[in-house]
């Protein structure tokens, strides 16, 4: 058994990172080229890590599942990126960003990691601006900011509704510069299907070339996973189609603990579900809540068009319940309140499963042009999808799975329980606790890639004795063969149900029993039905085509196979965590006002799960969380 040592440095919270940086071992510039580092995933975290390590002189191999790193799903992040610059002179500071993030995460994140994140946030903005990221500016030519949920200061930097795209292009270009100088070798259309562990250390990966079908072995001295989150376990989510838990899950099965899988974020402002054939949900940025007001009719079943419902018959419920944060209450809180309104029968639209996000008052106050300048592309996207004009009628929105705070367990150095395996960005569990604040995902991805891993990976390499290995090593041969066999198995079942139908069924189960509201009876039901579905999958799935060529159905099949295991772990984690915190809402544990009720005495810990083998119950390890700076308290946004 591995003991969970978070390796949090000693000292006051303000000094920890600086002291730790000084204490870390360095690799001499001339020796860096002797080390090979694999980076899996080329979104914000992966591309920034690959670029930075390449600049330092390491040999980097970057693996991209798409045909270009610019397609990674970081591209879809809309609203912005937080940084404690205090350019608005409104009282922001590193400490306040730290405080807001710990509180926003409902006291389930590690203080030391969060403080480091807040510290380097300022460097991220400097770096991105130097790269030419075109952030929004005011007429003096200085950077503009807006507000996001869970904060009372304006610290969010943005590029209209395309901040993720612009930051990704920045990181991608920096990486392509290293590709040009041959410090980074970029391998396109590769999907990681196994991690190779030799002598207890991560020494490489097995990937499938998605164009030729070839299964390849790649050797390294350290492996970084930056492979995103697992919201697609719900089938319908705001994630892109290729987003999967596969890389992280395969590492988990090789010994990396999976932490807090039940912490999932249901984003309050998404375009509601329209029908059976829907393939995904689309987010409408949280930034819209700066100017949009969320409401439902006061009367049940009021089906009048919004424009005919007078103000005194509208319930602006977030403003009513949370007067100090209003429409900018954090995501978990805002989502839950929307669900309550729909459950009360006061939802809007043809399905009744939606609430209004209304810009009427802002348009009257600021004019249509000002609103278009802030959110033009979002309004356009909304109109394309729904056929309705949000300048004239309120948007209809409803919560949808969006981000996963859980992920592979990592210590302060972002290293997993497997030495030499580092995990960055959404794929790790570390910084957001039980609920992530808006505009913090971009910040964390880039913090990990630009400013944390370049130090901690070097520290590991300098302090570790690594034997030379090659793809001919038994460890590689065994993993390579295993991957090949599993793919063959999927193709040979030739059953009666498509991959899609299994994924949809799993998604419905997860949404119903492990979605916005969870309870013991439902979770137990899910824990019974998921293994059955998984068994059916392995006996009755139909995967067309063959191994040796482009085969998207085969790709989907191995991803869904992993979701069928990981979904079960999510439900188990949700069942064992007998409290409500952030995005994990157990209906049995709530205050009289319907807010999440934590149990700090029994659950102030990280739950890290260890794989025990197929169809065996995983074992739980706990990392106790201590709060020395932000005092444990009930969150209040009233």
């Amino acid at each position, binding site marked *: 058994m591995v003991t969970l040592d978070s390796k949090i440095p000693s000292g006051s919270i303000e000094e920890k990172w600086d002291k730790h940086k000084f204490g870390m071992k360095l690799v001499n510039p001339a020796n860096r080229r002797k080390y090979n580092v694999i980076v899996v995933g080329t979104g914000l975290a992966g591309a920034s890590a690959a670029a930075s390590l390449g600049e330092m002189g390491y040999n980097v191999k970057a693996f991209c599942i798409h045909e270009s790193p610019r397609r990674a799903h970081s*591209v879809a992040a809309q609203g912005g990126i937080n940084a404690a610059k205090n350019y608005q002179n409104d009282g922001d500071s590193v400490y306040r960003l730290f405080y807001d993030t710990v509180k926003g995460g409902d006291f389930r994140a590690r203080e030391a990691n969060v403080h480091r994140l807040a510290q380097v946030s300022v460097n991220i903005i400097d770096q991105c601006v130097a790269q030419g990221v075109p952030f929004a500016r005011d007429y003096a030519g200085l950077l503009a900011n807006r507000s996001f949920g869970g904060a009372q200061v304006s610290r969010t930097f943005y590029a209209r509704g395309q901040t993720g795209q612009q930051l990704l292009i920045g990181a991608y270009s920096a990486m392509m510069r290293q590709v040009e100088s041959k410090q980074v070798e970029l391998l396109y259309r590769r999907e990681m299907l196994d991690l190779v562990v030799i002598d207890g250390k991560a020494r490489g990966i097995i990937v499938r070339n998605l164009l030729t079908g070839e299964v390849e072995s790649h050797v390294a001295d350290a492996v970084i996973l930056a492979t995103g989150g697992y919201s697609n376990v719900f089938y319908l989510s705001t994630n892109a189609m290729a987003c999967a838990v596969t890389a992280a899950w395969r590492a988990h099965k090789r010994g990396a603990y999976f932490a807090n899988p039940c912490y999932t974020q249901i984003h309050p402002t998404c375009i509601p579900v329209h029908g059976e054939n829907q393939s995904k949900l689309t987010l409408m940025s949280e930034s819209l809540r700066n100017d949009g007001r969320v409401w439902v009719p006061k009367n049940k079943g009021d089906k009048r068009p919004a424009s005919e419902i007078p103000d005194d018959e509208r319930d602006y419920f977030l403003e009513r319940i949370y007067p100090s944060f209003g429409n900018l209450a954090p995501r978990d809180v805002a989502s839950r309140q929307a669900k309550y309104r729909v459950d009360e029968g006061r939802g809007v639209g043809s399905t009744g499963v939606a609430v209004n996000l209304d810009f009427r008052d802002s348009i009257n106050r600021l004019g249509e042009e000002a609103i278009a300048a802030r959110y033009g592309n979002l309004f356009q996207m909304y109109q394309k999808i729904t056929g309705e004009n949000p300048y004239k009628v309120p948007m209809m929105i409803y919560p949808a799975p969006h981000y996963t705070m859980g992920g592979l367990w990592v210590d302060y150095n972002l290293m997993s329980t497997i030495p030499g395996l580092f995990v960055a960005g959404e794929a790790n569990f570390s910084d957001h606790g039980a609920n992530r604040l808006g505009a913090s995902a971009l910040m964390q991805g880039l913090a990990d890639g630009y400013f944390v891993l370049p130090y901690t990976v070097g520290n590991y390499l300098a302090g570790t004795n690594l034997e030379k290995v090659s793809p001919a090593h038994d460890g590689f041969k065994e993993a390579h063969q295993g991957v090949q066999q599993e793919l063959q198995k999927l193709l040979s079942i030739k059953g009666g149900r498509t991959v899609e139908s299994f994924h949809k069924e799993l998604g419905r189960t997860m949404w119903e029993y492990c979605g916005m509201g969870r309870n013991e009876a439902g979770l137990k039901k899910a824990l019974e039905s998921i293994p059955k579905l998984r068994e059916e999958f392995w006996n009755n799935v139909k995967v067309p085509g063959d191994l040796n060529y482009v085969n998207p159905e085969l790709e989907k099949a191995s991803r869904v196979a992993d979701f069928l295991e990981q979904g079960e772990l999510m439900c188990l984690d949700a069942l064992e965590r007998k409290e409500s915190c952030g995005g994990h809402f157990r209906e049995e544990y709530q205050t009289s006002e319907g807010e999440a009720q934590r149990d700090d005495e029994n659950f102030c810990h990280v739950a890290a799960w260890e794989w025990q083998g197929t169809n065996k119950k995983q074992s739980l390890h706990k990392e106790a969380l201590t709060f020395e700076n932000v005092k444990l308290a009930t969150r209040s946004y009233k």
Partner: protein
Amino acid sequence: MASNQSKNIDLVLKVWRQKGPKNEGQFVDYQAKGVSTDASFLEMLDAVNEQIIADGGDPIAFDHDCREGICGSCGFMIDGEAHGPERSTTVCQLHMRHFKDGDKIVLEPWRAQAFPIIKDLMVDRTALDRIISAGGYVSVNTGTAQDANNLPVRKRDADEAFEAATCIGCGACVASCKNASAMLFTSAKVSHLSLLPQGQVEREERVLNMVAQMDAEGFGACSNTGACSVSCPKGIDLTTIARLNREYVAAAMNKHDAGQKLGDG
């Protein structure tokens, strides 16, 4: 959300099927029945593929990922138009309410020498990445940046740079150009960086190297017909091409002059 006008329509798809880069391709007809007008074009294709799989066939391959119009993965010709009939729209954001019951729709991959076909509607667009590697960046290593607000940028320039930077690299501009030129793509990046103070140091080398790479990849020359800008889902403006041309001429002349001074021709 089901809009009030939601209904179901039947369509016939004429789809380019090609097993691999070296195989011959052909059009094959498929029936798409009971398509909800609220569905996106790709969701319609998903349903057709589910049917093909159920019938024991090989589903139609197409690139797609975010399905929000921002990742640039999707894109093919619909009735001869890149991304289909709607302006400022990627295929994933094209909805079936723009089609009529009984329509016959022709689907073809991007056609360009520099975009070899991988399978069916999938093409290889890595040539665009290589144009970026040739100079589409500011050479600033991690950690070397000054405070962000030490470098004010005139709002007009910042906004214009942003507009150019919204390119998603989908390749529609190449596909809709009769010369299969990548000028709009290349000029968008050149414009984005040449408008900003950060991009000034490498301004001349950037445009020369990126254009040289574009030519080396086998993209055609620009003849200013403007089809690229019309089909661009992000509405990248033709003025970016004018800017690239100015930048290119200035850079080439400066390089020539510098060469003369240094005596290396």
